[in-house]
């Protein structure tokens, strides 16, 4: 008997603080991958059960197809719909061109409790790769589906799936001078959006705490910028930086105890500082008349990456996270390279570059120090953020004058757009596992 693990999904029926947002997303894959792996996701339940509750298999199918790594089989092409390995005629699925097949069954235990059993088979060698069971209430079905997709993705691709993670972003409704700015947290596929903060003044630069429990962000709600830290679960928030002048670009240290941020002197000189969240102690990291901003930490907390225009235009630099360091310039291609984000394995830096008058997402291999690779083709692609597994980047793009979110695989081969039904969407930040 193979090991069958069980995850009990907890049900919180407490009164919840976060309202739903109205915007939802339509995903369009704009560029695919030729060598996508053929896989069949067989429906987990009868159409009646799926209709009455949730079509788990369809969401698993959507997740895997959207990743660009899989080519999933259409249901109408399936000659059979087995729900477990015993009923699976593997040769049939191989003849239909699949490398893998996922079968499963969703069983209602009672009105609000479901058990999902699923098995993943390698069709070519007939090996069972996964046998697993998830128990959940109705509200947890969507998450359970993302977790199934995560497991399948990890088993086949060898990289942890990030379908069950979250994103934060800023959405802008209405038009000047009567805009409404919202800070929103949603599932990684853009579903389940919830408003975390709403203001008539700009909200900027959401940053996830390493434990995924809090967001730091900039709010102009008092007509000047301040940095706040807000606990998602309770809604409790604290103003952590409200100096005269600029308070911008918060970035959490990997241990969650400090924020790197941008402050200004009285004469408007922007430099990078590190704020100790427990003691409020502030240390100055850069000291240059240029604009120094957009800090990011290395995983060991020893180094900060940041943007500076000390050499003329904005370029990306690296400096010790302890005071007194000397910065090293990292980008040399092009006149504009800014807002770096470090890939989770620290092999790559993603940033915004200017190319032929357009702003696009580029990456640079930090180990080889090779030239940069431009990943996107839009005219206004900014704010890249890595998925916690490093496979994909989410970024802000423009679609017919409207701000939308888009994703690109870290190698640039797969692109997709998340089209919001309303508002202007900007500054996505992908949360941790």
């Amino acid at each position, binding site marked *: 008997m193979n090991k069958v693990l069980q995850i009990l999904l907890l049900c919180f029926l407490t009164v919840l603080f976060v309202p739903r947002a109205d915007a939802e997303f339509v995903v369009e894959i704009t560029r695919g991958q030729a060598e996508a792996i053929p896989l069949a996701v067989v429906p987990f339940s009868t159409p009646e059960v799926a209709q009455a509750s949730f079509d788990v298999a369809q969401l698993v199918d959507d997740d895997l197809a959207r990743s660009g790594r899989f080519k999933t089989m259409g249901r109408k092409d399936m000659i059979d719909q087995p729900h477990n390995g015993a009923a699976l005629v593997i040769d049939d699925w191989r003849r239909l061109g699949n490398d893998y097949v996922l079968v499963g069954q969703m069983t209602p235990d009672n009105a609000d409790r479901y058990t999902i059993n699923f098995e993943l088979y390698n069709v070519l060698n007939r090996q069972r790769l996964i046998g697993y069971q998830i128990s959940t209430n109705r509200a*947890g079905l969507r998450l359970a589906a993302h977790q199934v997709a995560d497991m399948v993705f990890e088993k086949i691709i060898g990289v942890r799936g990030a379908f069950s993670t979250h994103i934060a972003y800023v959405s802008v409704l*209405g038009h000047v001078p009567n805009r409404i700015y919202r800070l929103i947290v949603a599932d990684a596929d853009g579903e389940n959006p919830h408003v975390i903060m709403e203001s008539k003044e700009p909200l900027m630069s959401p940053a996830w705490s390493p434990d995924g429990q809090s967001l730091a962000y900039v709010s102009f709600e008092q007509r000047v910028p301040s940095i706040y830290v807000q606990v998602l679960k309770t809604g409790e928030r604290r103003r952590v930086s409200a100096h005269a002048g600029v308070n911008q670009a918060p970035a959490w240290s990997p241990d969650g105890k400090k924020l790197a941020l941008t402050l200004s002197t009285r004469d*408007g000189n922007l430099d990078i500082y590190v704020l100790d969240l427990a003691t409020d102690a502030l240390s100055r990291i850069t000291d240059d008349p240029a604009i120094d901003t957009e800090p990011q930490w290395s995983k060991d907390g020893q180094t900060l990456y940041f943007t500076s225009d000390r050499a003329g235009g904005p370029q990306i630099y690296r400096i010790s996270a302890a005071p007194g360091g000397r910065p090293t310039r990292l980008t040399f291609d092009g006149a504009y390279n800014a807002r770096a984000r470090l890939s989770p394995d620290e092999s790559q830096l993603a940033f915004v570059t200017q190319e032929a008058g357009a702003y696009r997402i580029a990456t640079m291999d930090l180990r080889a120090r090779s030239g940069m690779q431009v990943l996107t083709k839009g005219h206004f692609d900014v704010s890249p953020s890595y998925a916690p597994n490093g496979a994909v980047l989410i970024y802000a793009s423009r679609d017919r004058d409207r701000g939308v979110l888009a994703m690109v695989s870290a190698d640039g081969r797969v692109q997709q757009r998340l089209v919001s039904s309303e508002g202007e969407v900007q500054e996505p930040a992908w949360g941790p596992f």
Partner: protein
Amino acid sequence: MKKVASMTLLLAAAVLLAGCPKKPSVPESANSRSQVPASASTLGSGAASTTGSPYGDSSSMSAADAAAHAHNVIYFDFDKSEIKPEFAEVVTAAAKNLASHTALKVKLEGHTDERGTREYNIGLGERRAQAVRRALLLQGAAEGQITTVSFGSERPAVEGDNEAAWSQNRRVELNYQSAAGQP
């Protein structure tokens, strides 16, 4: 088992999020407001004598605002923070005003167009506000009369993805505040 723990954590977060009651959707005040100018002009031309309709009031107010506004905005070239010669008069007049009314305070709001990264644009907006601040100080305003704030590209004056809009957005607004002091 760490994985199970983290999955449970994620789950907790997601269930929390998923289970939320629907918020009454925010009234689309922004959208309806944006249609006001069109209705206002229609009403204005249609009605021979206005009887103080809200439309008439708001349109005359905004016209007055706009007229006042025109003298309190300095526009900049792309990626530049130098004050262009055509705005020298605006600066001189503002400096005189501040020098002769020492209780008067001004907030300089620096803005950029939407191009580039948002946080770097905050830096550019601050640089523009500081350029105006320095010019005002040189011409007799006092330090304590001036504060600066940069909105970067977050609060455009005009929406649009073209130079006509961008040129209106690269600006420093001079916002006078009464001595009583606003925040």
